[in-house]
């Protein structure tokens, strides 16, 4: 059954009913507005903004944020590789870089990874159900096509069919089709509201009551569930009947939008369709703000509101006007995620350095300095892989092969299990001693620093490279910048003095284990 036409008709019906709005500001105009708002806050809080990031800093950050990996030395597209970017004198090179990155397949994969971790519970059961690869490939398609965010939500909430095929059904089956789980998850992810506490009692901090939670959960009541309680659900389809009750009572709860009136009886539309209408309604008070907050958090390490999915009245932001303006901009530009990313990355704020001297006051909520973000497990693995690969060749490894075989790789899965950190802790370093040991002595790193197994080292082990050139390539391949003069002096001396070819492996080991490598600054 083709969902697209249904979704499109729902969304278009809404657009038709909404009074024609003025075109949104251009990306550059909006970026300037954002900077102006932040500057107001800095002036008020007497915060000093960090200096602007240098080209190398910006390049690495943009690659990691948008494609989940570090930049290659050279890139045939002419701008995204380290050498080309640093050498270019084009005043618009940063804007052009962002456009190129958004067009790469690895961008779609990276965003699919990030969103998959947000949407699916991190559970072995989910992996056993199968279908994670199908879910991820569906997500990847959405980002590759820059599907508008309201359509993406609609497709997800209206999912039908088998969980093990390419499509969003796994979102439902991984939560066992339970209305309370679906309510908790969708409100957290799409509404930025942590309503799950109100499932059993009135929310301790926010204003939601039990009736609010169950009124919202009622939208998910009419799904075909397996007959036996113990059976695992494998597919999603609507049912004609089904109700939820507040635990302890036997009265069916009428579906009610969060913070709104009852949805009324819209003949011909299923409960899920009615919910999608509300979610994609341009004046929905939650969706655009939650989306903007999440994308902001992805790029800046922390949302305008923190935690990223807790946008209640109890959790005020330091930037309320900015939040409202960004949310409105997002809706008026058609929920265009790429446009939002381009806008945010054009701001001066995104391009601030992360440098701060030790002892400087840390007030990340002001965004006067770029926060340092930890790499996710997927990013770390991909960076290690990039750092091992032959870098000087003109043609990088075929993107498609890399992108498709991800999920099946057992080594990668084992690594991810070891390093997976809770998604809320983007600016905290979550690793412990076992992770450090793996990165210092584990199989991946031993391969990467062994002359005979590493493409990179093997390629450098040629007589026509001087020690200085070899060291420079290693720095560029890992830290995405050339060595500073004192680093050059020490490392080149080490390589020349050691006399053996293994010295390069030692240099690479030091670089790969450095904080500078494994953090996104």
């Amino acid at each position, binding site marked *: 059954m083709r969902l697209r036409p249904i979704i499109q008709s729902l969304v278009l019906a809404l657009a038709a009913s909404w009074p024609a709005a003025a075109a949104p500001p251009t990306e550059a105009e909006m970026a300037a507005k954002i900077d102006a708002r932040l500057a107001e806050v800095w002036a008020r809080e007497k915060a000093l903004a960090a200096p602007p990031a240098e080209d190398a800093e910006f390049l690495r950050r943009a690659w990691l944020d948008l494609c989940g990996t570090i930049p290659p030395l050279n890139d045939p597209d002419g701008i995204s590789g380290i050498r080309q970017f640093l050498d270019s004198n084009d005043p618009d090179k940063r804007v052009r870089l962002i456009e190129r990155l958004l067009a790469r397949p690895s961008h779609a994969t990276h965003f699919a990874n990030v969103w998959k971790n947000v949407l699916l519970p991190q*559970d*072995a059961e989910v992996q056993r159900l199968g279908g994670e690869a199908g879910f991820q490939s569906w997500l990847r398609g959405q980002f590759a096509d820059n599907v508008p965010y309201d359509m993406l939500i609609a497709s997800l909430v209206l999912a039908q069919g088998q969980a093990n095929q390419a499509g969003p059904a796994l979102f439902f089956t991984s939560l066992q089709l339970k209305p309370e789980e679906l309510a908790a998850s969708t409100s957290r992810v799409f509404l930025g509201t942590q309503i*799950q506490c109100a499932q059993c009692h009135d929310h301790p901090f926010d204003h939601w009551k039990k009736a609010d939670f169950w009124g919202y959960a009622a939208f998910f009541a009419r799904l075909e569930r397996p007959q036996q309680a113990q059976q695992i659900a494998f597919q999603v389809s609507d049912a004609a009947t089904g109700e939820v009750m507040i635990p302890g009572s036997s009265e069916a709860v009428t579906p009610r939008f969060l913070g709104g009136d009852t949805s009324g009886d819209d003949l011909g539309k299923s409960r899920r369709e009615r919910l999608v209408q509300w979610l994609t309604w341009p004046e929905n008070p939650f969706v655009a703000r939650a989306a903007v907050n999440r994308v902001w958090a992805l790029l800046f390490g922390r949302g305008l509101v*923190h935690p990223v999915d807790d946008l209640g009245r109890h959790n005020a932001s330091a930037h309320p006007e900015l939040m409202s303006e960004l949310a409105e901009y997002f809706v008026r530009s058609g929920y265009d995620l790429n446009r939002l990313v381009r806008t945010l990355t054009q701001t001066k704020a995104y391009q601030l350095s992360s*440098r701060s001297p*030790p002892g400087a006051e840390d007030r990340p909520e002001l965004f006067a300095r770029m926060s340092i973000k930890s790499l996710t497990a997927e990013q770390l693995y991909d960076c290690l892989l990039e750092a091992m690969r032959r870098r000087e060749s003109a043609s990088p490894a075929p993107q498609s092969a890399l992108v498709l075989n991800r999920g099946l790789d057992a080594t990668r899965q084992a690594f991810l299990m070891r390093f997976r950190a809770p998604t809320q802790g983007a600016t905290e370093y979550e690793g412990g001693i076992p992770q450090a040991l*793996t990165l210092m002595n584990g199989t991946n790193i031993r391969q990467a620093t062994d002359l005979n197994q590493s493409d990179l080292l093997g390629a450098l082990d040629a007589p026509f490279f001087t020690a200085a050139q070899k060291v420079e390539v290693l720095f560029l391949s890992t830290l995405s910048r050339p060595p500073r003069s004192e*680093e050059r002096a020490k490392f080149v001396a080490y390589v020349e003095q050691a006399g053996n070819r293994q010295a390069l492996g030692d240099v690479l080991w030091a670089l790969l284990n450095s904080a500078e490598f494994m953090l996104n600054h």
Partner: protein
Amino acid sequence: MSEHSRRQFLRAAALSAAGVSCSGWMPRLARAAAGDPARRRHCVLLWMPGGPSQMDTFDLKPGHANGGPFKEIETSVSGLKISEHLPKLAAQAENLAIVRSLSTAEGDHNRGTYLMHTGHKPGGPISFPTMGSTLSKALGTDDAELPNFISIAPQVALNSAAYGPGFLGPRHAPLTVGSGNVIAAPQQPAAGLGVDDLRNPGVGREQEDARLDLWRMLQTSFLAEHGSASPKAQNTVYERAVRMMRSEAAQAFDLAGESDKVKDAYGRGQFGQGCLMARRLIERGVPFIEIALRSNGGVLGWDTHQQNFDRVKSLSAELDAGWATLMTELHERGLLESTTILWLGEFGRTPTINPGAGRDHFPKAWTTVLAGGGIKGGQAYGRTSADGGTVEENQVDVPDVLATLCRALGIDPATCNISELGRPIKIADGKPIEALLA
């Protein structure tokens, strides 16, 4: 208070609660603290993958048709009897609290393993941490030389989430020994208990020093310009890992210094040597150690659908040697009173014997054993029916067992950690069983 997140508030509250409960709650703990201010609590989980047969170990029914060929023997506690194949444990029965009335609902290996390790059923949106992670977090300190949670011979292939730190994050993951990514140090026994990733065998000390020297230059200059918390945290963790690799404390993993007599007493298999390693780790203050009895390479040693009696007999010998010797040696060093031991599998086995002389999965009525510090030993708690098919008295569930374990360790089971989704999650949901607590 505008930016002060609820998460930070609750985290601080949880930390202080843990602090309060560890600092003077239990009379036993206060006494121990008075004697030696540095003394801490330890927990050992003896994990029996496959599902150990309760009717052939701790809850025999010799007169009944379901009883099988094993006989009961007297223990050091009058009236308390266990399998004839656990003689050394029988001699120390005053340390054991045998809970015969455990009843759970998961009869599948994966699900049962997850349930027993985390206290929660699998399949929900929350990734619950394994008990080793929650308890080591409550018992350990951040700056300890050795990791606070060490897992010997874990079965990660089966259900990695059951052994993982869940929403507590990778910092509370165990250091694994002998899991298969073995880098065997030269003196390790043939059982192959190398600490995963402790060394790079191709790199000697001098080269390691040279690498660290280069590394420290990069760290120093990066940290000089980036003073926020996460680069500092990364540096600290790494320096601790290096310190651990080279410390005297890491000698704990090297069994070469132990005499043959001691090694023989524990049993030369992986489990026995794992128990020996656990004693050495406890001597150095490690708060939580999990040891699996895999029976020399078998993945689900206790899963005796066939030839139950032969296999349980040989497994019992390994169990008896390792566990009893561990308790003896801990007692000799004055450490048993601060070490609580939990013996557990994912479920029990059927009272009725199948045609293959085996027993099948049975979570309805089975046995777990608590021992050591904080536990009132020398008793059997709860009772099953004459045929072993149902619990007749004092039925308990896994959250209760975990809550009891917490109390024995001086931890308040209601202490909360914050999950991924912002919800406070108690360490253990059940009610402690007072009769089991000293």
